């Protein structure tokens, strides 16, 4: 029998070794081979985590259902991101090629650690790691815009992490003088039970605001929007899904721990408030968006708002939140990959310069339309189910005001995305620009069809295993 702890150490060492080696290699073939080897090891590690589900290893890691589920999404999207990354950085210098892949390996490793961390301290350290790794990726194109987006991202995330840490420190006030503050999830659950509700409320607000820098919720959304707009498309796809999931997971962990205390109604109100504001801000900016990737970045914010509201309304909303975060990851990744291809074909991200995509690249246009169907939660998109469950939870609770506001804001979002994407696909560009002489193979859209296909499949057939695992994740939350 293999010791799970040894496997975790082995995988961590392998990731550090692979990332370090890739940074110094100058042969693109060797970098590609080593990156593919790392991806294969990550998939094997994810399978290993499923086999050892619910086990805690080395005190610092736990293979709990939510962590392993998000790790699986990460594994899947690592495959597609690495594939699209190979194409995106094909013409780069060997040095930049190496930095890109080294940073990507570091990011995947840090995110895996954050998903599997068994305490607020380890989550906090791995989240810090993701910020550092992603900085190199956002800055990859070395443009003034990339510089600005990276600086803001690193700065605000570091500040956010400091704020989250202040939240964690407030828990320390409930531990006696001179005693060691243990921040493993089990220990935190015990602390929370005895804690003064006022300190718990302060801790939750700080943690929510701090990790919102990762999750992209209001009021810390601006840097994530900028970063997703400016980063290379495969990285935008990666960080607007799996990295946002890291922020969600950190907030969810604290929410789950505090939900059995008297502050549960307070947390729900804060989450709904933050979610509605995220929805309002994203709807407003999407209606005036003139940059295709920026529109998708605001769409990510909108979807995180939906997740926060779903969590806040509870009941079947818990299920909706987990399902939505999974489906959003698949859909948004596919859309960002497609945005990268549309840029190659049309030579622009500006809405007014985009158009006639159906004639320029039919396979890409078909993928974009399918992605549009999925992200707008129009049946047979699986996101229709999660959004329906969220609205149903509001009806069950009798929160009709939230129901009306959310539905209205979703209508604005729907209008904004539909008009813009349909313009890109069917209309002539308002300000035509010289088209680049670049051919994109229709085969490169296969990964997007696979991801969108999975989202549609989940609408039609929700596998019992998926339902069971989500029910297990939310079973400890108050009814």
């Amino acid at each position, binding site marked *: 029998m293999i010791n799970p702890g040894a496997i975790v150490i082995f995988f961590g060492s392998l990731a550090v070794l692979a990332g370090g080696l890739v940074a110094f290699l100058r042969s693109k073939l060797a970098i590609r081979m080593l990156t593919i080897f790392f991806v294969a090891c990550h998939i094997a590690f994810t399978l290993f985590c499923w086999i050892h589900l619910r086990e805690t290893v080395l005190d610092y890691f736990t293979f709990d259902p939510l962590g392993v589920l998000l790790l699986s999404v990460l594994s899947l999207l690592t495959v597609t991101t690495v594939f699209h990354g190979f194409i995106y950085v094909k013409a780069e210098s060997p040095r930049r090629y190496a930095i890109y892949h080294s940073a990507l390996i570091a990011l995947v490793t840090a995110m895996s650690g954050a998903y599997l961390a068994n305490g607020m*301290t*380890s989550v*906090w*350290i791995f989240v*810090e790691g993701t910020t*550092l790794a992603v*900085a190199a990726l956002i800055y990859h194109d070395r443009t*003034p*815009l990339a*510089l*600005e*987006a*990276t*600086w*803001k991202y*690193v*700065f605000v995330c*570091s*500040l956010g*992490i*400091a*704020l989250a*840490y*202040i939240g*964690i*420190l407030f828990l*320390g*006030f409930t*531990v*006696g*003088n*001179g*005693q*060691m*503050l*243990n*921040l493993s999830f089990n220990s935190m659950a015990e602390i929370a039970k005895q804690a*003064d509700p*006022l*300190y718990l409320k*302060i801790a939750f607000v700080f943690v929510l605001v701090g990790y919102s820098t990762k999750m992209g919720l209001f009021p810390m959304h601006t840097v994530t929007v*900028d970063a997703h*707009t*400016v980063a290379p498309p495969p990285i935008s796809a990666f960080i607007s899904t799996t990295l946002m999931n890291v922020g969600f997971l950190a907030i969810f962990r604290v929410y789950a721990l505090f939900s059995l205390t008297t502050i549960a109604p307070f947390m729900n109100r804060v989450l709904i408030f933050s979610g509605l504001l995220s929805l309002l801000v994203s709807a407003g*900016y999407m209606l*005036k*968006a*003139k940059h295709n990737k*920026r529109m998708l970045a605001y769409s990510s914010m909108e979807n995180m708002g939906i997740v926060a509201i779903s969590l806040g309304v509870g009941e079947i909303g818990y299920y909706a939140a987990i399902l939505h975060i999974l489906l959003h990851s698949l859909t948004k990744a596919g859309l960002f990959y497609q945005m990268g291809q549309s840029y190659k074909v049309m030579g622009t991200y500006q809405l007014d310069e985009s158009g006639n995509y159906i004639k320029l690249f039919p396979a890409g246009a078909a993928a974009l339309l399918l992605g549009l169907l999925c992200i707008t939660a129009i049946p047979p998109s699986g996101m229709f189910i999660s959004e329906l469950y969220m609205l149903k939870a509001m009806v069950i609770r009798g929160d009709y005001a939230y129901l009306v506001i959310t539905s209205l804001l979703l209508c604005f979002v729907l209008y904004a995305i539909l008009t813009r994407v349909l313009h890109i696909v069917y209309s002539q560009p308002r300000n035509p620009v010289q088209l680049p002489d670049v051919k994109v193979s229709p085969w490169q859209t296969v990964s997007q069809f696979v991801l969108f296909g999975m989202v549609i499949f989940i609408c039609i057939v929700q596998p019992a295993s998926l339902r069971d695992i989500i029910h297990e994740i939310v079973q400890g939350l108050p009814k």
Partner: protein
Amino acid sequence: MNEFVIIFFAITLIYFSITERFRIYVNLIAIQGVLLFALSFLELEKITLGTLLFVAIETLVFKVIVVPTLLFRIIRKTGEEKVHEKSMPGFYSLLIVSAGLILSILVSFSLKTTPGNLIFFVVSIFAIFTGLFLIISHKKVFAHLVGFLIVENAVLLLSMAIGSQIPMLINIGILLDIFVSVLILGIFVMRVKQHTSELTMLKDD
């Protein structure tokens, strides 16, 4: 003695609001590092010797020597000496920061803290306020970096205020956070200077 040191720390925070020269900002950050070490030393009975050694490295080595050296280097390389001329005038900054101090006292008294750590708590809340105020009231990225360092100092002060022992892993995390953030942000500040010392290109229009 603790009270004198912590009050001196609060005075440095007020000084941040009225000064305009970046060199003074850096000197104040270094002074705060010395004060934080002094506080850790005076709190020796409450913390272990290992933690004290760690705090000595964190405060005296990093906050007093490494970080200010790095910041002075940034000032030399970028030639940025003063805050933006359109920044909020010192008088108004002083008024707002003073209001922040009163607010911090009110917030601290409304929480049920023990009298022993009340003053630590007040000043750490005040430091968070001042750090965030410095970030939002200044246009130049260097001032933002200093604001971030003040918030990090506030975190260290708050961890002293809670009384319970903080795991070493967290201390290592904080140290890593400060060092890497300043290093990376420092590199970016110098690159930002090649284009502009403000960051206003990414907009929704």
